[in-house]
């Protein structure tokens, strides 16, 4: 069943189009890995899917009653975030800002959901820790937990294992696999790790072949 349908999609920055006239469908239950060279538009495509970047032309249709708020997005970490003074809990709870309006406090149900997401990414013991003092792998898992809080059915992951050591990468892959298999989460992942992609993915999208 189609979950997301790109029709004639064009995305770009400034006066340059990065993705042009792309037609593509993402099905529910997919574990889709997007591979390709640096600068070929993988991240841009994901930003388009996440709704961060507006399409220049064409459309992204959400099918099967999928709503924008049911899509979780894990962007690449920025330099600002690496030394950000914030607790893990604050960061994960910030995922609900699209939902709750002017509440100065987070309700019980939201806190419960945040705990579940922390458990799913095996970071529940880090709840009170300071984000900037975590290891790269822990940081990435916390950001995945935040993405999960916002997500119900679809996860968009932008290079989730880049810069992680083999053990942390494996850990990350196991968590994602668990989400895919046991939580019926549809996964779209941008990655440079072709070997792992071939091992886990149910579908592959090679951007080198699409964009000339």
């Amino acid at each position: 069943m189609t979950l997301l349908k790109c029709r004639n999609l064009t995305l770009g920055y400034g006066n340059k189009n990065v993705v042009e006239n792309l037609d593509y469908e993402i099905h529910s239950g997919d574990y889709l890995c997007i591979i390709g060279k640096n600068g070929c538009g993988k991240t841009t495509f994901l930003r388009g899917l996440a709704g961060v970047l507006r399409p220049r032309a064409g459309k992204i249709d959400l099918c099967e009653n999928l709503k924008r708020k049911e899509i979780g997005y894990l962007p690449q970490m920025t330099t600002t975030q690496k030394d950000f003074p914030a607790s893990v809990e604050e960061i994960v709870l910030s995922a609900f800002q699209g939902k709750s309006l002017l509440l100065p406090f987070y309700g019980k149900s939201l806190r419960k959901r945040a705990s579940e997401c922390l458990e799913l990414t095996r970071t529940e013991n880090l709840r009170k820790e300071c984000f900037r003092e975590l290891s790269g792998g822990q940081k990435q898992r916390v950001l995945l937990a935040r993405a999960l809080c916002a997500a119900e059915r679809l996860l968009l992951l932008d290079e989730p294992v880049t810069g992680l050591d083999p053990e942390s990468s494996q850990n990350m892959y196991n968590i994602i696999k668990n989400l895919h298999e046991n939580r019926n989460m549809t996964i779209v992942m941008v990655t440079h790790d072709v070997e792992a992609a071939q091992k886990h993915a149910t579908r592959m999208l090679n951007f080198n072949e699409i964009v000339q």
Partner: protein
Amino acid sequence: MLDKLFFYLDFPFVRYAIIVGTLISLCSSLLGVTLVLKRYSYIGDGLSHVAFGALAIAAVLKVSNNMLIILPVTIAVAILLLCGSKDSRACVKIRGDAAIAMVSAGALAMGYLLMNIFSSSANVAGDVCTTLFGSMSILTLKPTDVYLCMILSATVLVIFILFYHKIFAITFDENFARATGVNVSAFNLLIAIIIAVIIVLAMNLVGALLVSALIVFPSLSAMRIFKSFFSVTIAAAVISVICSLTGILVAILAGTPVGSTIVAADILVFFISYITSFIRNGRM
């Protein structure tokens, strides 16, 4: 010494200075955390120079209340600098730093030029020095200035408390916030306006050149010691208010310039927190 202090506290202008100083330092430190974390500190510095230029224009035009010109001009420039480009990445990294250097130096030069050409008083150098380093202006506030300052600070405080979580989300990760449906552009606009208001207010307290110290120091000190965004925000506010009060009182008692004394107190606290964190972590 206490007698002297109580003697001074009887004067309304001293009380005004203390009220205004507390409010301004509170507001500037709250938004300072966001500004520092978003790597916008230098924009704050540029904006204070713009406010100086606008002040010169207001002086030349002889408007009854110079806020009428300074506020809109500074807000307009803040929006241009902070929300100039649709893609935030392009705005800050590529055109940003050059644009800020240009605007801040340009505004400073034009302001001084205007003040010289259309000078109304005999002591232009003294006037300029006062606006740049705020040596006396905090002690010459009129009641209307105080009320305006109170209203603006209260507005800034209410907005900050209401949107605290949204501001955090946007500061930490603009892209993610946008993906979850937060209206990032609108909030960036709001933050730009608030920052402009704070800078204009703070210019009264410490002068145009020292405004960024008021914004940057308390949050940097707090970030050295505290580990969650909430505690950093609260600590920055507390540090800022204490430093400003100390600065104002010392300045009154010792007859030193108010702005520089406040900044000196801020620097002192920064070093204390730096050493504290150094001892605690055993590293820089």
